[in-house]
């Protein structure tokens, strides 16, 4: 049986971070739902904070350094992606967007993606639908219907059976279904799809 890879991207900045907390719970829910379907899962967590300087260097030099390259490969080669960002100034954080900006073209083409966001108050939750969703539509990702927002207050009333817990379960089940429905994806190979030159000539 093939093991599926789940890339979990967290753009939280503090430690411990509620963004990471939400990301982990989404990953757990997805993993559990996949295991119920008899699918083995390997979870690869990407903490963007650890790559803040690598990402800034990439903006300037135009290439990923040796620390960032495997991270980009992990996300591009994943069978499913969980992407969670804090909401800053009405949108995803700059660090999160920088990561998206340096993804290789086509990296998330058709990849099932579950979106999550955190903020201090519930007044920011529409950022998931007015900022995150359009961004991933542009990337041609297959975003699952349920996106999960957690405000600070949700952690107080949280736990199994709570509203946040139920949303996490539902979102995890949706991502698991989408991942299980697709053939396993391999590592990205930029040389795999180069047409033979005679085909290039006759275009």
């Amino acid at each position, binding site marked *: 049986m093939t093991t599926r890879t789940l890339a979990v991207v967290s753009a939280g900045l503090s430690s411990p971070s509620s963004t990471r907390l939400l990301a982990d719970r989404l990953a757990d829910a997805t993993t559990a739902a996949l295991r119920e379907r008899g699918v083995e899962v390997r979870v690869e967590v990407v903490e963007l904070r650890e790559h803040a300087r690598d990402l800034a260097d990439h903006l300037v030099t135009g290439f990923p*350094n040796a620390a960032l390259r495997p991270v980009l490969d992990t996300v591009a080669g994943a069978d499913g992606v969980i992407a969670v960002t804090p909401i800053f100034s009405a949108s995803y954080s700059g660090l999160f967007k920088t990561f998206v900006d340096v993804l290789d073209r086509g990296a998330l083409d058709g990849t099932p993606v579950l979106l999550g966001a955190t903020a201090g108050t519930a007044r920011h939750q529409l950022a998931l639908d007015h900022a995150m969703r359009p961004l991933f539509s542009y990337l041609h990702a297959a975003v699952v219907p349920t996106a999960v927002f957690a405000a600070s207050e949700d952690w107080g009333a949280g736990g199994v059976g709570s509203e946040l817990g139920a949303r996490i379960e539902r979102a995890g089940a949706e991502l698991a279904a989408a991942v299980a429905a697709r053939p396993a994806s391999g590592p990205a190979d930029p*040389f795999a799809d180069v047409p033979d030159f005679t085909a290039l000539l006759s275009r």
Partner: protein
Amino acid sequence: MQFGVFSVSDITPDPTTGLAPTEAERLQAVLRIAEKTEEVGLDVFALGEHHNPPFMSSSPTTTLGYLAGRTERLQLSTATTLITTNDPVKIAEDYAMLQHVSGGRVDLTLGRGNTGPVYPWFGQDIRQGIPLAVENYALLRRLWDSDVVDWEGTFRTPLQGFTSTPRPLDGVAPFVWHGSIRSPEIAEQAAFYGDGYFGNHIFWPADHTRRMVDFYRRRFEHHGHGDADRAIVGLGGQVFVRKNSQDAVREFRPYFDNAPVYGHGPSLEDFTRETPLTVGSPQEVIDRTLGFRDYVGDYQRQLFLIDHAGLPLKTVLEQLDILGEEVVPVLRREFAARKPAHVPDAPTHESLVAARLAQEVTV
């Protein structure tokens, strides 16, 4: 193996003085650097083509034509010639002309150019970059290889009964290298024609260059031009060298930190580790450069970028002295000792004429 330098012709203020050369000063400096390249015993000088400030080299054949008259052995090349936005008819004419003027001492490296506005300024669309490179080069080859050309394509007005003049010197077109940092389609193009592949080898990590060159070599063999290790590979590279390593680092750091392309990003140490940039003693440059062979195989041409980021002319000429006296003689000896006999040298006009004569004899 050929060694040389390539210049992108940027006019950049010297970060240690804040002063930038005038266009006229920078242009004269580039001419002086090219002449010095021959004086110190290097083989190749290649010049970029740009159509926007802060670059001054819009018309490389004018510059290289002058240099042809000022030098005797120097191979004149480009880095790169824009195959997307130049009319291939004009490239065919200009470089055949330069071939005659220089007595065959010319080859060229084709590139697409990555400056967005240059495409519309020349009536093209950057999204058509690859199709433009493919069609324009197909026409360029026909213009050089056939005396009379009937042609119709997508991007240019058709030609009926057209003869590009002057005809290539001795009936042999200049050798062509194809340069691309990250498009495998261009490596495929180089392989298809049996042309050279030139890896920029400045801005990206060694592992990326390794994969591009490996792909080109495999495709060269696939397209029937001979074994993969006979493919023609050139590499860029970037060095700053002083007798003592610490002096090189201290002197180059402000230029690195403020460089137009990668400045204000990674540290000099990070960038040295991540890319082929080497800042240090002659021995360090020798060791690092010999190491390129470990991941691209035996290759034919090594060009160094030494005159950018506001480095003063005096410093650049000193760099050439050190390269010519202490670095390149050792590299020549060491690369030659490692190269198997069946691996060809970089094509020259003489070798291409000889190959053509040999072919005519067998036919």
